[in-house]
Each structure stands twice: as structure tokens, then as C-alpha cells.
């Protein structure tokens, strides 16, 4: 019936593993994955604890549709207090790992405490063991960790989520990686895993899943597939991927460039999707090799690329002269235009190192961009970098930064602090393009006012996936109406991210199509209204977590640069992000006080008292 009804609780301090029943009452109210994981975290943990302390908990949560056969239903989320943000963190990933965890018979893992020695968790159906990682995989890259675990256990079907050296060394934006190039990427969930001395979780499952009403589920799933598969968004995501967004934002003037000094990038044609499809001189191959799909996905938005073997970054490194995870929009924006780098091979290499060492490419690229601006104004010199000229536009500097940050070497430790802490350390906090400590994705909020509000109010810090103001933002540069669009899409996305299904399916589906699948998989009465109610409940629960963690209304803001320095070009030329015009209406629509706190009536309406 969608759920296995089993949670695996792992006390890393004591080395104790305890199965327990899933709280089905909460599952009915918070759906699963993002919502249910946040409920468990909120109930079990004081949000004020240090994110890197043993008191923080780390939850791996699947959704009710994960591994049921639902179209794109292979997702899981990592929920914790974020090392980057000190706020609620919920990072969503695809690949195969989440589905295999569910197929092993577990809806959720709750990891507590801190292991005295590095360990990894092996989950093979009911056979669950904590095993030593020291002198085996501790200190290894994500890729080598996966290979070594599979070789040791002689099970090529093990699916592995792990951290690289970045997570071990508490890089503030370390990811949890799975299946080589899929990531629970944002907010530093990998650093929390590293702080617990937990290197990896390897899962293999053959238990299977069941749904409550097989016929209804089958019909709803078939109808959803019939909509998704021939749809234009699916075809576009498959053929040109999210990478295609770069031409859109560059044309529009909302492509964050040179640490948001500019909004359009002169070198865009060298790093756009057309460049990735164009055969190169050296070996006649294009950067883009093929695409890749996650569990049960018919979209296949993932990119597989190759780096020019003659490129300086890989010339003497056969390890990288292979097919590897390629460029997706948020990554290429950050390591390309944001740093002023127009070298597609350097960008692909930097992106690959983010996968290999387990770093969020958005936060990494934006942190390098901040470091480049600090270098540009003289706040950082070659003395700090160890001789590297950290100049905007330098492919050599980008490649070097990826290597030293991924391995926590020298100045790479500073880049690994993230933009906020880096800019504070060197005396220029205003140069960090962050919200709640988390770096911007690839949308400048001066031409996209709705996205500015979405960034400012996102519970996990600047994020492009918490709300969906894209269509209105690309049609209207105005503040009117954005609050309602942002609020409604935040609720929608919060519920959607709780189901186990990919947000990208929503490019072809309406909420009805997803709710019909939930109704087939789960007992109870699932409606569109109930779906949005659950999303609003989840959003408010995340907000309450943040308030208890010490965040306030003052954190619902944007960097001074985008609020005071007008865009230099593009559709938003002369505009600044006008968050002050939208925030009061947003609070009112949410049923929050003028201080941004849910009112008692709102809490009562949502059952959050």
C-alpha cells in the first residue's frame, strides 16, 4: 500500500540498529519523503542544536510512490539541519539508490549520534550492518567508494549513497552522492553525514512494493505516462536537457554573471547547449555523449559527457578521459558565467570533480565566483591562494579551485566554507550571493522578481525548486501578483517533493495526475485540495523548524547587490529586486504575522498547534 511501514533507526554512537514501525498517522498528514522526514526531525530534535554536532539527526526518506512503478517514482530526500544554512535542509535525489532502499523494505532511515570510528551501513533487505570504513573507503572519492563496496560485497546490484572527501572534511556544501553522479545536493547534507563519521549507505532490495488499489494505480499511472511521454517538455528535457535554460536566461538578462555584477554573459555561446552538441577538433566527439534516466523515469534529463582529451585539465589524467556526468543548467551557470569562465571543458571537469568529491556545484561555483571578486578587489591575494591568480574568467583558476576544494587542500578549505563565511572572513559580507547562507541558483532576481521572492522566503535558502514563478517571471517584470504565485507553487512543490516522484514530471502533468496515482497507491481519500493542504502544512512545519532554530524575518531577504545595484542589461535593465514590495503580501497570504510567524489561526487550521 505504497508504504513498507518500516523505519530503520541507527544509533551511530552506540552502533545499535533498531527497526520500528512507520508512524502511519503522520504519513497520512505529511505524505512522505520531504514532509514526513521533516515531521520526524521536528518531533525528535531541538532545531537549535549545532548542525555538525551528534545531536543533529540525518534522515533518508522515500515517498509513498518511490519504487511502486509510478512514472519517475525513484526519488528520496535527505532531511537534516543544514551545515551550510543552519536551517531546515531537505535535498532531493534521483538515480537508483532511493528505490533500492525502499525495495529493501525500508521507508526511511534515521541516523543519530556520531560513530566513534568511520563506518558505512550495508542494507540488504532485513540484513543490516554497520561496517568499518577506516582503512577501506574513508578518504576515498565517491566513485572509488562505490566501486570498492561493490567489489567487497560481490554484489553489482548494490546502490550506494556516499560522501567524498568534501563531506569528510566538513565542506559546508558537501553533497550526499548516489549512483556516481546523482546528488542530494544542497544545504550541506553531506557535511552532516561526514560529521557523523558515516561514509556510505549501500542498499540492495528484493522485497518489492505493494499498492493499496492495484487497478486504480495501474490506470492512473498509465494515464500519466500517456501524458508525459509524448509531451514537448519531456522531449526537450531528454534532447537538450536543463542546459538549454542558459540561452533563455542569457537572452532574457537573468543569467547571474561575474558574481552578479552582470546579468548576461558574453561567452555564453561557448558554454551553451549548442556548444555541448558541437563536435570538437581533437577527437571529433561532442561534449555531450548521451542522456541518462533515473529509476522508472522516461524523461532522461541527466547528461553524460566527455572532456576533450587534449584539454589541459585532463591531458595527463586518463581517469577523466571517459564518459562522465555532464553539464546541467544549475551547474554550468555556476562554474561558467558566474565565474566568467567560457571554457566548456574546464566547466565539465569542475562539474565532474564536484560529483567525484561530493560537492554541490551551485554552491561551489558561486563560492569560487565570490572568491574571484574578493581577489579582484584585493581582499584576497596570491598569498592566500598559494600563488594562484584567482581571476574572473580564468579556466585555470576554476580547475585549480575544484581540485583544492574537493580535496580540502590549502585555500580550498576557505572556498569550502561557502560564499557567506568566505566573504565574512575576508571582510566583505555583501559580496556573498546567498539567502540564509545558501548560494543563488541560475536566476538573477532583478529580471525575475518572483524568483527573488522565492529565494528570500525559501525555507532552505536560495533555491529554484521550492517555487515555480518561471512562466510569469519570463512574461512580466513586475512585483504585482508574484506573492500568490510563489505561495501556491511553494505549497504544490512541498507536497510534490513528498511523494517520491520527480518535480520534472510536473512539466507535463497537472496535480490531478499525481493525486490519482497517490489515490491508487495509498488508502484514504486523496484529493487535489488535500494535496495542497498537505503542502501548506509541510511549508509551515519547515518554517516553524527555522524559527525554533533562531531564524527570523530578517533572514527573508536578498543580497544588497541585487536590491541596490540595477541590472546593467537585458529585459530587467535598470531594475532592482524589490523584495520589500512583495513580502508583506506574501506573509498575509500565508496567514503569518507581520514578523513572519504563522498565526495561531493558521497553525490551528493546519493542525500544527
Amino acid at each position: 500500500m505504497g508504504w513498507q511501514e518500516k523505519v530503520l533507526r541507527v544509533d551511530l554512537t552506540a552502533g545499535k540498529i533498531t527497526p520500528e514501525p512507520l508512524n502511519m498517522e503522520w504519513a497520512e498528514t505529511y505524505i512522505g519523503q520531504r514532509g514526513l522526514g521533516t515531521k520526524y526531525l521536528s518531533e525528535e530534535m531541538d532545531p537549535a542544536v549545532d548542525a555538525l554536532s551528534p545531536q543533529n539527526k540525518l534522515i533518508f526518506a522515500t515517498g509513498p510512490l518511490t519504487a511502486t512503478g509510478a512514472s519517475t517514482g525513484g526519488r528520496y530526500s535527505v532531511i537534516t539541519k543544514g551545515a551550510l544554512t543552519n536551517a531546515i535542509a531537505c535535498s532531493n535525489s534521483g538515480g537508483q539508490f532511493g528505490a533500492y532502499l525502499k525495495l529493501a523494505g525500508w521507508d526511511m532511515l534515521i541516523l543519530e549520534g556520531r560513530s566513534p570510528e568511520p563506518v558505512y551501513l550495508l542494507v540488504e533487505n532485513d540484513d543490516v550492518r554497520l561496517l568499518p570504513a577506516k582503512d577501506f573507503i574513508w578518504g576515498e572519492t565517491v566513485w572509488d567508494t562505490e566501486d570498492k563496496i561493490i567489489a567487497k560485497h560481490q554484489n553489482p546490484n548494490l546502490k550506494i549513497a556516499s560522501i567524498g572527501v568534501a563531506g569528510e572534511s566538513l565542506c559546508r556544501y558537501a553533497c550526499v552522492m548516489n549512483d556516481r553522479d546523482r546528488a542530494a545536493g544542497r544545504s550541506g547534507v553531506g557535511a552532516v553525514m561526514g560529521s557523523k563519521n558515516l561514509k556510505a549507505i549501500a542498499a540492495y532490495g528484493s522485497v518489492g512494493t505493494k499498492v493499496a488499489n492495484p487497478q486504480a494505480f495501474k490506470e492512473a499511472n498509465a494515464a500519466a505516462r500517456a501524458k508525459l511521454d509524448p509531451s514537448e517538455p519531456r522531449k526537450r528535457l531528454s534532447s537538450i536537457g536543463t542546459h538549454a535554460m542558459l540561452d533563455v536566461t542569457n537572452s532574457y538578462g537573468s543569467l547571474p554573471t561575474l558574481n552578479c555584477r552582470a546579468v548576461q554573459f558574453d561567452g555564453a555561446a561557448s558554454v551553451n547547449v549548442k556548444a555541448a552538441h558541437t563536435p570538437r577538433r581533437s577527437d571529433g566527439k561532442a561534449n555531450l555523449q548521451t542522456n541518462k534516466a533515473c529509476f522508472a523515469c522516461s524523461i532522461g534529463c541527466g547528461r553524460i559527457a566527455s572532456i576533450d582529451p587534449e584539454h589541459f585539465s585532463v591531458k595527463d589524467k586518463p581517469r577523466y578521459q571517459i564518459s562522465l556526468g555532464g553539464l546541467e543548467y544549475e551547474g554550468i551557470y555556476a562554474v561558467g558565467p558566474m565565474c566568467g569562465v567560457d571554457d566548456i571543458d574546464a566547466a565539465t571537469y569542475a562539474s565532474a570533480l564536484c560529483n567525484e568529491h561530493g560537492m554541490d556545484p551551485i554552491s561551489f561555483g558561486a563560492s569560487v565566483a565570490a572568491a574571484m571578486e574578493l581577489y579582484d578587489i584585493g581582499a584576497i591575494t596570491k598569498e592566500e591562494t598559494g600563488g594562484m591568480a584567482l581571476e574572473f574568467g580564468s579556466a585555470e583558476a576554476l580547475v585549480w579551485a575544484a581540485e583544492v576544494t574537493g580535496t580540502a587542500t590549502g585555500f580550498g578549505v576557505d572556498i569550502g566554507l561557502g560564499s557567506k563565511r568566505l566573504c565574512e572572513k575576508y571582510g566583505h559580507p555583501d559580496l556573498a550571493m546567498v539567502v540564509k547562507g545558501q548560494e543563488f541558483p541560475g536566476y538573477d532576481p532583478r529580471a525575475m522578481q518572483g524568483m527573488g521572492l522565492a529565494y528570500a522566503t525559501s525555507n532552505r535558502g536560495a533555491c529554484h525548486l521550492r517555487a515555480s514563478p518561471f512562466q510569469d517571471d519570463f512574461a512580466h517584470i513586475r512585483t504585482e501578483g508574484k506573492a500568490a504565485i510563489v505561495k501556491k507553487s511553494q505549497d504544490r512543490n512541498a507536497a510534490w517533493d513528498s511523494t517520491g516522484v520527480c518535480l520534472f514530471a510536473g512539466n507535463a502533468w497537472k496535480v490531478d495526475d499525481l493525486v490519482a496515482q497517490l489515490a491508487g497507491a495509498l488508502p484514504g481519500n486523496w484529493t487535489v485540495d488535500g494535496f495542497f493542504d498537505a503542502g501548506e502544512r509541510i511549508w509551515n512545519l519547515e518554517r516553524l523548524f527555522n524559527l525554533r532554530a533562531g531564524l527570523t524575518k530578517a533572514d527573508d531577504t536578498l543580497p544588497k547587490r541585487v536590491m541596490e545595484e540595477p541590472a546593467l542589461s537585458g529585459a530587467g535593465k535598470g531594475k532592482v529586486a524589490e523584495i520589500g514590495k512583495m513580502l508583506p503580501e506574501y506573509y498575509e497570504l500565508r496567514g503569518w504575522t507581520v514578523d513572519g510567524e504563522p498565526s495561531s489561526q493558521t497553525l490551528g487550521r493546519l493542525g500544527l498547534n
Partner: protein
Amino acid sequence: MIVINVGFQLVSIDPSEVKGIGRDGIGEIPVKDGGSLADAMHMVGLVPDKPFMTLVNGDPVAPENRDDKVLNDGDQIAVFPPIEGG
């Protein structure tokens, strides 16, 4: 009939799906004098009420305003699809 010429650029749209635009996604099309953005989109085979995003001379034109957006000779149109990033 007086005809004006307007520039047309496809951003992240396959040019083979569109009439009268070069393989690089850039072209110039004739439009009747007083014609609208919706007229220009019809001419190349793009359905104006589909959720494309449009710019004229760099300024966004919302779908509901395409019928009323009168074009001038030399205007530059850009059209891109409703991608949501990830």
C-alpha cells in the same frame, strides 16, 4: 499590401519545427504593416497561445498581450520554451 521585416530568433527551440527560420534558429520574416506579434508567430508556425515566452526588442511580451503587440519594421523577436530549470 505594405510589408515590414522583423528579426526572429528561436532560443532553445528546434528550428526544424518552425517555418522560414534558418538552421541556426535566426531569420528575418515579412509581416504585414500593422501586424502583431501573434501574426508573426503564426507565420512561422508557432501557436501563439502555447506557453512560449516572447521578447520584442528585449522586452517581455506576455501571452495575453501578443495580439495587441503591434510590430515595427526592424523589430527583433525572440521566442523560447517554458523550461523550468533544475
